[in-house]
C-alpha cells in the first residue's frame, strides 16, 4: 500500500495534481448541483456518507429496470444475468482490495455488520474466558460494542491501545498489551473522528509475531487510500459501500479463505446451505455460507460500478488531490482564532474535527447549514475518543475528492460568521 505522503510527492501543485480535474469530477455527482437554503450545497460530510456518481445511480436503475431477478436460484435468463452481475461485483471488490480470490469477499450490509459477523463467527469460535481482544482508543462504536457483546458471552476481556494528544496510537503500549492471552486485534484503519491513518501494516506484523489475527475496520480508509489486503496481510478487512460512493445497505468483509472455511455460519437461512433436512443441514461453501437470505443485489452492483468509477478517476490521483485539499483546509481552520483541531496526527486523511471556544458544535452545525454547508456535529459514534480529548462533541468537516478549495474557503468564512454571532 502506498501512503498518501508518497503520493503527495508526485503532486505538481499542492491540491492540483496533473490529470485531476475537480470541476469535471463534480459533474459526475448530480446532487452537488443543488442549492440548500438558497446557497450552493457545500457537502463536507462524506465521512458520514459519500455522494453517488451518476454511473452508480445508473447501474442501480438499470438493474431494476432491466435485470432485476433473484440470484443463485433461477434457471431463467434474468436470474442468470443478475447472478452474473452480482458475482462480477464480487470479483471487482476482490481486485479493488487485491484479494487473491473472490471467495474471500462476503457481502454484508456494511462495516457494522461485517464486524459483528467476524465477532459472532470467528470470535465465538476462538475465544474463551480469560482471553483478550485488543482494540484502540479511537474506535467507532461499531468496533467496540460487538467485542463487548462477545466478551460478555465468552468471558474474554477487552484491552485498549491508548493514543497521544495528536490522536496517534502509542505503539509501545500496543506492544505491551500483546501477550499469550491475546486472541484477536481489531483496529480502525482511518479514524472517523480524528482522521488519523493508523500504521496497520506494522500492527498486523506485531500481532502476527504473536500468532494473533487482525481485523481492520476500513470504513473510512477505502474512500481515501488504495487498500491491498495481501500486502497488509490482514486477516479480515471490513468496509461500507455507502462511504465508497456506492449505495447504502451494502458492505464487505474480506477474510482469508482458510479462516472463512474454518468459521461457522453467521446467520442461517436460504442461500447459505447445500441441503437441508430436519436432521442435518449441509452448509454452502465460502462465501455463500455467510450470505443467508436474498442479498442487496442492486447495492452490490452499485458498489461494483463505484469501484469501476474510482479506478477510472484513479485512486492515486484522488489521494494526491485530497492531500492538498486537507493541507489547505488545515491551514484555513487553524487560522481561525479560538478554533482547535482535534486530531493532528502526522498521517491523516481528509477529516477535520474541531471545537470552537464558547460555541457548541451543534450551534456551529446549524449556522453553517444556513450557508448551505453540510458538516457533522456530535460524538461521531466514537464517544470514548472524544472523552479522551475532554470534549463531549466536535464539529467535523470531512472531505472527498469532489470538494474544492473554494468550498473550504466558504467553510472558513462561515465559521468566522459563527464567531461573530457568538462574539
Amino acid at each position, binding site marked *: 500500500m502506498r501512503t498518501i505522503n508518497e503520493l503527495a510527492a508526485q503532486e505538481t501543485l499542492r491540491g492540483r495534481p496533473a490529470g485531476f480535474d475537480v470541476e469535471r469530477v463534480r459533474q459526475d455527482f448530480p446532487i452537488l448541483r443543488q442549492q440548500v437554503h438558497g446557497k450552493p450545497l457545500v457537502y463536507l460530510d462524506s465521512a458520514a456518507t459519500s455522494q453517488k456518481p451518476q454511473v452508480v445511480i445508473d447501474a442501480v436503475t438499470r438493474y431494476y429496470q432491466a435485470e432485476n431477478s433473484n440470484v443463485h436460484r433461477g434457471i431463467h435468463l434474468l436470474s442468470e444475468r443478475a447472478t452474473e452481475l452480482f458475482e462480477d461485483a464480487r470479483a471487482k471488490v476482490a481486485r479493488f482490495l487485491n484479494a487473491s480470490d473472490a471467495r474471500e469477499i462476503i457481502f454484508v450490509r456494511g462495516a457494522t455488520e461485517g464486524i459483528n459477523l467476524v465477532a459472532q463467527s470467528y470470535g465465538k469460535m476462538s475465544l474463551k474466558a480469560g482471553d483478550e481482544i485488543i482494540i484502540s482508543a479511537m474506535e467507532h462504536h461499531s468496533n467496540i460494542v460487538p467485542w463487548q457483546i462477545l466478551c460478555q458471552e465468552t468471558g474474554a476481556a477487552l484491552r485498549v491501545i491508548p493514543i497521544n494528544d495528536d490522536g496517534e496510537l502509542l505503539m509501545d503500549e500496543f506492544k505491551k498489551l500483546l501477550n499469550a492471552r491475546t486472541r484477536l486485534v481489531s483496529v480502525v484503519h482511518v479514524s472517523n473522528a480524528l482522521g488519523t491513518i493508523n500504521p496497520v501494516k506494522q500492527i498486523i506484523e506485531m500481532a502476527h509475531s504473536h500468532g494473533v489475527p487482525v481485523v481492520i475496520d476500513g470504513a473510512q480508509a477505502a474512500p481515501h487510500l488504495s487498500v491491498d489486503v495481501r500486502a497488509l496481510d490482514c486477516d479480515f478487512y471490513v468496509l461500507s459501500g455507502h462511504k465508497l460512493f456506492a449505495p447504502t445497505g451494502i458492505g464487505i468483509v474480506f477474510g482469508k479463505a482458510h479462516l472463512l472455511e474454518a468459521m461457522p455460519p453467521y446467520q442461517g437461512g436460504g442461500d447459505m446451505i447445500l441441503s437441508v433436512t430436519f436432521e442435518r443441514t449441509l452448509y454452502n461453501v465460502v462465501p455463500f455460507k455467510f450470505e443467508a437470505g436474498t442479498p442487496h443485489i442492486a447495492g452490490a452492483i452499485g458498489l461494483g460500478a463505484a469501484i469501476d468509477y474510482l479506478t477510472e478517476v484513479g485512486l492515486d490521483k484522488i489521494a494526491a488531490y485530497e492531500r492538498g485539499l486537507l493541507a489547505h483546509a488545515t491551514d484555513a481552520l487553524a487560522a481561525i482564532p479560538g478554533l482547535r483541531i482535534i486530531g493532528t496526527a502526522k498521517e491523516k486523511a481528509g477529516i477535520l474535527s474541531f471545537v470552537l471556544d*464558547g*460555541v*457548541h*458544535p*451543534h*450551534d456551529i452545525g*446549524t*449556522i453553517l447549514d*444556513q450557508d448551505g454547508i453540510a458538516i457533522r*456535529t*456530535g*460524538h461521531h459514534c466514537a*464517544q470514548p475518543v*472524544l472523552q479522551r480529548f475532554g470534549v*463531549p*462533541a466536535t464539529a467535523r468537516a470531512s472531505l472527498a475528492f469532489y470538494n474544492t478549495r473554494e468550498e473550504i474557503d466558504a467553510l472558513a468564512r462561515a465559521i468566522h*460568521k459563527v464567531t461573530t*454571532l*457568538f462574539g
Partner: protein
Amino acid sequence: MSDLRELYQEVILDHNKRPRNFQKLEGANRTAEGYNPLCGDQLMVYLRMEDDMIKDISFQGSGCAISKASASIMTATLKGKTKAEAEVLFETFHKMVTADLGVTFDQLEVGKLAAFSGVREFPVRVKCATLPWHTLHAALEGKREAVSTE
C-alpha cells in the same frame, strides 16, 4: 442571517454565555438527568420542592446554546411556581417551539420563553430546546431513569 437572528436571539446568547442557576443545588430533594444522543447534550436538573412548590431549582451539564439557554431561562422562570404551573408552562413552551409558522403567542402567557419562538423554524433544534423541560418533568414526577430525547 435573518433566520439565524430569529433563532439566536440576544436573550439566548446572553443566557448561553452566563447561564443562571448553573450549579448543583444543595438540599435538592428531586433530581433528574436528560440526554440528547443526537448531539451529546447532557443535563441534570435539581429541585428543592416544598409541598407542591418549587422553592429552588438549578441545572448543570453541557449542551448547545439552545439547550443551555432553555435550561437557564426555565430555572429563572420556575422559581416559586407550583408543580401544576410548571407543567402548564411546559405545555405552552412545547406548543410554541413546535407550532406552525404564523401562529402567534400571547406575550403575557409565554413571557421570557418567547425568545424560543424562532426554534420552530429549525425542526432539528426542537429537541435541544425541550430537553431541559422533559428533564424537569421527570424530576417533578420523581422518575429514576435518565430521560432521552430519542
